[in-house]
């Protein structure tokens, strides 16, 4: 009986996790404009890979900051971006805070694609619903528009965010 209960709980957690994953993925909308990219042209498969991997990175970032765990960041972020996200999660854990990034829309534009294709710089005009919670209390809830400069580099099987830097305006 106890065994059966454990199996039911395991399946329920699995299903809930899958539903939550789908919900989070579908809530990140990405558009990419490669018209003015240079000096290297962005091929269509690269374009698709960047949209996929940048979207995944934001999904993972949202999950890390919602559940206060750095595990989702593995594989999507490296370098400076990874360092500050780790610090943010640690800070939230200490302060008992969580952040929710909902209804994300990202309008990306390629600023620079290196001649050898080893780094791409993007400009992201992102808008999302940001909610910051202290325990169960909502202390901040706003629809936010942020402008990011993004550096991504190719990894073994995906593009990885190396720099994610917000600015007042462009």
């Amino acid at each position, binding site marked *: 009986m106890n065994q059966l209960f454990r199996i039911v709980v395991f399946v329920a957690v699995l299903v809930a996790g899958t539903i939550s994953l789908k919900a989070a993925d579908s809530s990140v909308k990405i558009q990419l404009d490669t018209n003015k990219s240079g*000096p290297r042209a962005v091929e269509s498969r690269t374009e698709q890979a960047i949209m996929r991997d940048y979207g995944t990175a934001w999904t993972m970032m949202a999950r890390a900051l919602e559940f206060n765990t750095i595990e989702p960041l593995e594989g999507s972020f490296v370098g400076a971006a990874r*360092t500050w996200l780790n*610090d943010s999660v640690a800070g939230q854990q200490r302060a008992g*805070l969580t*952040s929710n990034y909902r209804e994300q829309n990202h309008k990306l534009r390629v600023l620079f694609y*290196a001649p050898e294709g080893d780094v791409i*710089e993007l400009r992201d005009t992102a808008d999302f619903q940001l909610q910051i919670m*202290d325990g169960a209390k909502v202390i*901040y809830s706003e629809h936010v528009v942020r402008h990011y400069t993004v550096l991504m580099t190719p990894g073994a099987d995906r593009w990885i965010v190396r720099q994610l830097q917000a600015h007042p305006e462009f």
Partner: protein
Amino acid sequence: MRRTLLGCAVVAMYLAELCSAQEVHVPALVSAGNETAISTTGSGKATLYLSGPGISSKTEINLGEKFILHSEDVRNAGEYVTIVCTDVCRSAVFHVRPSKPAYLTFLVHPSRVPVGQGDAVSGVALPFDEFHNLVLDRVKVSFQSTAGDLRILSQSVLTQDGVGWFRAASGKSAGKLQIVATVDSLSSVRAVQQVASDPCNLRTKAHRTPKGVDIETEPVRDCSGNLVPDGTIVTFSAAGPGGRNTVDAPIKQGIARAHIQTPGSLVISAASGTVMGNEVRLGEQP
């Protein structure tokens, strides 16, 4: 009437409370790593939250007093949300911008390049401040490349969106090409190994020995006179009455050598890449 007055009084008290609630004043723009302060109005205790790149904190404060943000609190460029809560929460947003360049990331490709190739070498320089924020203000990057004492490239560009780059032809001589990117007093050095290009021509000589024919090339050079790298394959062919014999030989110290055991008169030729060498005719062994 009395009810209306009471209602108005309640609304007025609520509005008065809202008006007297704390206000948050944040700096307009902060340079990364520079200490700054957040000020509040009102009196009494409150909770101040700071949420930004690399920081999430919660601190009990006294309203009306300045709250100092230390250098380490604002080291990452980006948007920071400050929230001050009593019964109600008020928020304000400020931005931290990158400081001046302190590091230079310099990517150069390729690591080995044949000489005399157009647009064969490229470099990308990205200036970062001491906190690893990408510096987006335009800065001048100088690129210089030298091969031995010879200056191959000298070019300055202004970064755009934090990136400066160049593309250039490779030099004429095999050897190390040193490329330096400089921003103010910062510099970063990379090396590219320039190797000989494809062989320009092949000269072959052959002589009979008791056991067959020894064939070797003269030193194989590209069109700029550089010795072709060791390991480049030369294919020797010997055509005779018994058919054609072919053997591949790698170049060692500029010369490729092979031995063919074919009797009778022979026509020997050599090829490497798209280059064909001379033909050597050997008569029948006496």
